[in-house]
């Protein structure tokens, strides 16, 4: 009787070992079969999404110059979509300005895109002057960039590396200064 019971356990255990080995070998095979072919990563597509090429745009600044995102290829860029009436946008702008000052010499650029279709150019100008912003303030007068970047909430920030790839999207705010500095340093690493 005892021998039968022990035999039952051994039988069950050996069946389990065979089952486990089959599963393991199937897993190894599946990993090998499903490898990612070279050059098929997401970065070949354009989308307002982490890991994808940032959609290009060209907008006028408050002073009437035209700035295109594609002209900044090779430099890490922070695209920040904002409005003058948005409290978190106002709260994070001083930190963005400080980080811009510290990293500008290394090639870091900020494109502060004012969602002018839901704001006022006069208020945007006053906002920039009041906070002493030195980076380009772009006017998205007809909301095209907002659409391209699937804007759902203000502020929204896109950290773009020197290859034009979006490395992170931060929806909402305010972003802390430490977050900005860490992400900008990461952008420099990714751009190398």
């Amino acid at each position, binding site marked *: 009787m*005892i021998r*039968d*019971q*022990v035999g*039952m*356990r051994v039988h*069950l*255990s050996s*069946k*389990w*070992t065979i*089952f*486990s080995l089959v*599963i*393991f070998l199937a*897993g*190894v095979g*599946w*990993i090998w*079969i*499903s*490898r*990612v*072919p*070279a050059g*098929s*990563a*997401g970065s070949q*597509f*354009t*989308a307002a*999404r982490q*890991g*994808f090429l940032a959609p290009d745009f060209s907008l006028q600044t408050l002073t009437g110059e035209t700035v295109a995102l594609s002209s900044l290829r090779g430099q890490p860029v922070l695209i920040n979509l904002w409005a003058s009436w948005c*409290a978190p946008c106002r709260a994070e702008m001083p*930190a963005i300005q400080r980080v811009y000052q510290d990293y500008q010499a290394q090639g870091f650029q900020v494109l502060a895109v004012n969602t002018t279709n839901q704001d006022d150019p006069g208020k945007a100008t006053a906002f920039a002057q009041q906070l002493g912003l030195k980076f380009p303030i772009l006017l998205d007068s007809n909301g095209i960039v907002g659409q391209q970047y699937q804007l*759902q*909430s*203000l502020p929204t920030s896109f950290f773009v590396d020197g290859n034009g790839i979006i490395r*992170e999207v*931060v*929806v*909402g705010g305010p*972003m*802390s*200064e*430490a*977050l900005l*500095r*860490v*992400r900008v*340093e990461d952008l420099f690493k990714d751009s190398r």
Partner: protein
Amino acid sequence: MLPVIRLGPLAVQTPGLILLAGLWLGLNLAERHTEGSEVNASDLSNLVIVGLIASLVGARLVYVLRYPAIFATSPLSIFSLNPGLLDLWGGIAAGLIAGVVYGQRKGMRLWSTLDALTPALAVFLVSLGVSHLASGAGYGAPTNLPWGIQMWGTVRHPAQVYEILAAAFILWAVWPGKPVLRIKWKGSSNQPPGWRFLSFLALTAACYLFLEAFHGDSALLPDGLRTTQIVALILLAASLWKMGEQLKRMPKETAKQSEI
């Protein structure tokens, strides 16, 4: 996709909200099924709360330690609400350590506690899939299959839907109070300690191992190997090995009535 819900001036991050809801629902389910087990419902919920708080604190502390110079220039950022300033592995380690310390102080047995937590983990896994659907994370690789969906410039696998379906299957498989993995036991109380949790771990690892192949955002190792699949294979092998060990130690009467 719905990454943000706008409530007046507030922008609520939908994925975070879904994960919180999943945690709450899962913990509720786990607490309701502690009756008859060695684990006390209030100990279980306290364990989770202690683990969560320790995870958050640990994740922030490790992040600060990774970038000491940056936090020295803006020390107030240590208390920032930005979830981007959290270290995932630091958080997991801190949560586990706090959980183990709390469990030991309360005299909670490891495998029985993990079994009791399994329904909560399974519900959380479903909510993780839903949160990915909301945020767009874990999106699919390009495909020509008829059920592919148009997303970000091409037709892709609905990878988040696969993830939700797999998680729902796992939840059904480990639902409290019924035998797991077609092992026929005399009664649920005759299952070896840890069997439910190990089954959950093995099924989850197997699903991730299989489904990661359809993802378009996999973290890659050399030769195009996917990191998630390698980790899943290790977890799958470890859980199957441990389940085999549990089968060897099974009580004699239970073994006689068991069948794979």
